């Protein structure tokens, strides 16, 4: 790869790339994000390459292995460009048909099309799929177009032009002002204004400064940052380079969890390519500005997503948080002024520089600007990554984009912000989402994990799950977090086991508030949130567990019992065969019974019964 020395050379390079590409040339975009890979997209791409090779079409059709398209529920996803025909759940065996029928003859294959569960209609084009229609994709816009391991793709689609603008026409102060004007706030969850953060770090005294990308995404069910890094790592790097120039840093680190092998790999490739092209290294695009970026893999401690613990980990010390002040902007990595932003925040920067802070600030609400990516998981029809403008409502995300709840069940709540967040019950689904409105509801924006809970979810068990998560992930340094979360977990466990006591709810509330007030770092200060918010909205469920020893959602095993309705049972024997512990007995065509002593309450019998004869109470 040739080194690009000036902004003119970059534009020349881009022009060569763009003119060398025929926009009408058929292009097969195969999603190869982690989700689709699990569904077998690598075999699909192999099949495309083999088929195209063997039929001599290699000059006529391009195949691109892209990052996550977002619609994980329907993977592997294949989009044919430029037409935009959208195929889902594609198997390697479907590939010859796609080429011979659709690509050569223009015939659409019905079986591979997406059917909207709401209207029952099949949909041909990607842009008509309701999942995509209501989204506003700023950060994820190129994920379906570019090969993340090929810097030329990113450049051809306009990549590094923001960097070019930033080094050529903007002073560091102007860059910071532009980011400040955009109203961008930290996407890691706390929502601190990014421009202000940069300003503080720029003003801090010292010659050596650092920039860090926090890619230690750890909330259960959250994978926004992973998909950005997998699908468009150069955008993150471009944001970091612009930020480093604005702040005056010459060394950057990406702290990324090692459980994201594909993201680590793509980022490593991207850094090497950016160095080869001259976007990293000395005298970037002739500006005289130098920057090197290194990857620091994390080893799986959730607390290392907390910025001071993260920095300790980069310094090869134990990943434990330290008190602030001093804030990282003044004294961070190795005691030097340091600016830490999350992956999604960095990825927004090139967009802001390219299109201007004023343009960006038109998107969103009064105090929360731009878009936010959510990973929508749990009891939802369309599991996937959703990017919406700030101010969108939860009901838009859950029903319009997410396609509602499977099995026609009712939605109870969503849990936002993972173990640090809280639940928002369905009656508040029309509140526009922004940092402040969610806080008022007792939840948080968080990094974007959104777990959808249907009517069969036990909110006490949900709270217990998140508490067991933070209790295990607490670093153990401070007493309220180490012992307080354990105490809360013990109380929650006894409630879900039917041993709850009078006063338990009050104790949880009291202890929760105290842990929030007195813990050392953000982990402890937010750890009680799932419990406090479920008590706030679903106190009746707690009371049912404690006073009536009953789990209204029929989830908590010690509180439920399976039995067979003799009237409805036809004696078909399905449940008998499905039971893993041989707890069900009965003659053919006679009503069966469950031996309560043997029953492990796995629910297999209820799942297989065709006559709704298995009851749970």
């Amino acid at each position, binding site marked *: 790869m040739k080194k690009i020395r000036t902004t003119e050379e970059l534009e020349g390079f881009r022009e060569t790339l763009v003119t060398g590409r025929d926009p009408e040339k058929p292009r097969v975009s195969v999603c190869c994000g982690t989700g689709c890979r699990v569904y077998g997209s690598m075999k699909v791409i192999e099949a495309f390459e083999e088929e195209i090779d063997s039929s001599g079409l290699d000059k006529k059709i391009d195949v691109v292995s892209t990052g996550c398209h977002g619609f994980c529920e329907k993977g592997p996803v294949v989009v044919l460009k430029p037409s935009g025909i959208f195929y889902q759940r594609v198997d390697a065996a479907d590939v010859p048909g796609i080429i011979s029928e659709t690509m050569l003859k223009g015939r659409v294959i019905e079986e591979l099309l997406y059917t909207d569960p709401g209207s029952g209609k099949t949909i041909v084009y990607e842009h008509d799929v309701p999942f995509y229609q209501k989204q506003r994709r700023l950060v994820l816009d190129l994920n379906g177009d570019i090969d993340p391991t090929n810097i030329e793709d990113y450049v051809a689609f306009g990549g590094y032009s923001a960097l070019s603008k930033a080094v050529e026409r903007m002073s560091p102060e102007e860059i910071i002002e532009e980011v400040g004007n955009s109203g961008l706030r930290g996407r890691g969850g706390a929502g601190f204004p990014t421009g202000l953060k940069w300003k503080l770090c720029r003003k801090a005294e010292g010659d050596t400064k650092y920039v860090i990308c926090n890619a230690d995404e750890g909330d259960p069910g959250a994978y926004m940052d992973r998909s950005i890094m997998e699908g468009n790592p150069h955008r993150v790097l471009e944001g970091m380079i612009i930020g480093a120039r604005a702040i005056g840093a010459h060394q950057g680190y990406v702290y990324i969890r090692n459980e994201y092998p594909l993201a680590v790999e793509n980022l490593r490739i991207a850094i090497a390519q950016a160095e080869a092209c001259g976007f990293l290294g000395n005298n970037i695009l002739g500006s005289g500005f130098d920057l090197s970026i290194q990857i620091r893999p994390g080893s799986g401690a959730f607390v290392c997503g907390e910025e001071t613990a993260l920095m300790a980990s980069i310094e090869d010390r134990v990943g434990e948080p330290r008190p602030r002040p001093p804030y990282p902007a003044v004294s961070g990595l190795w005691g030097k002024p340091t600016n830490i932003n999350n992956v999604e925040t960095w990825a927004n920067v090139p967009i802001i520089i390219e299109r201007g802070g004023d343009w960006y600030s038109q998107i969103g609400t009064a105090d929360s600007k731009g878009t936010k990516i959510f990973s929508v998981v749990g009891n939802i029809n369309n599991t996937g990554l959703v990017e919406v403008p700030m101010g969108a409502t939860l009901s838009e995300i859950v029903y319009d984009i997410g396609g509602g709840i499977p099995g026609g069940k009712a939605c109870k709540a969503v849990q936002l912000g993972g173990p640090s967040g809280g639940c928002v019950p369905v009656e508040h689904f029309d509140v526009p989402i922004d940092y402040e409105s969610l806080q008022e509801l007792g939840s948080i924006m968080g990094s974007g994990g959104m777990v959808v809970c249907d009517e069969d979810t036990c909110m006490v068990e949900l709270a217990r799950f998140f508490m067991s998560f933070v209790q295990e992930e607490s*670093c*153990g340094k401070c007493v309220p977090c180490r012992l*307080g979360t*354990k105490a809360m977990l*013990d109380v929650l466990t006894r409630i879900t086991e039917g041993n709850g006591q009078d006063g338990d709810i009050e104790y949880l509330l009291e202890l929760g508030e105290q842990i929030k007030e007195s813990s*050392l770092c953000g982990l402890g200060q937010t750890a009680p949130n799932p419990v406090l918010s479920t008590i706030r909205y679903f106190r009746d469920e707690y009371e049912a567990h404690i006073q009536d020893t009953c789990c209204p959602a029929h989830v908590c095993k010690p509180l439920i019992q399976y039995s067979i309705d003799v009237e409805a049972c036809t004696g078909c024997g399905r449940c008998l065969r499905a039971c893993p512990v041989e707890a069900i007995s009965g003659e053919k065509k006679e009503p069966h019974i469950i031996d309560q002593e043997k029953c492990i309450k796995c629910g297999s019998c209820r799942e297989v019964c065709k006559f709704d004869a298995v009851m749970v109470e």
Partner: protein
Amino acid sequence: MITLTIDGRQVEALEGATLLEAARENDIEIPTLCFHEALEPYGGCRLCVVELVGPKGSQLVASCVHPAEEGAEVRTNSEMVRRSRRTTVELLLAAAPNAKVIQDLAAEMGVEQPRVRLGDNDCILCGLCVRACDEIVGANAISLVNRGFVKEVKPPFGIGSNACIGCTTCVFICPTGAIKLADVLTNRSVHEWKSDFEFRPCKICGDHYLAPELRQDYEELLVEEQV
């Protein structure tokens, strides 16, 4: 010098002092567990929390690590502070019910019976032993391992550490007496770290003392004996 208000009193403090130092300089007592003047502050026990009054309302900060700032208004014994300390002590009492220092603190703060039981371990993970071994002795023979509720103080890999010199600083600095020392005849052992040493008689006075270089020989001897 800077000026700040602690418990309604205008006091002066050295620039760079922590709130705890500023308070103690002015004879205002704040309870601590993981703090020691000779060591870097840790901010772990949260017993020294004080109420910092700010424009957006009050917040609790650990006075041992929070810097005293010009014009700050601090309350060391408000209801907010007392409530937090009671919770902390109740949790500590639930985890270390037999530690005398915790029992005393509980009695002082009116905490009777903890509402949960979290075990029975005298070690409260204040980290004083670890910091003293590192910062004062320079041996760095023990450290905090694991995280969360199963965190503990251990020598590397949980086996007798070559770095331990048997100085017993850890034993003396431990606020709860969780680290046990046994000097029996000419043998010294620090139970928690599985460290054993033999005393040598002094050639001049005849008294027994512990020679650091002996440690390794002694361990090798032990291994041979077991074989």
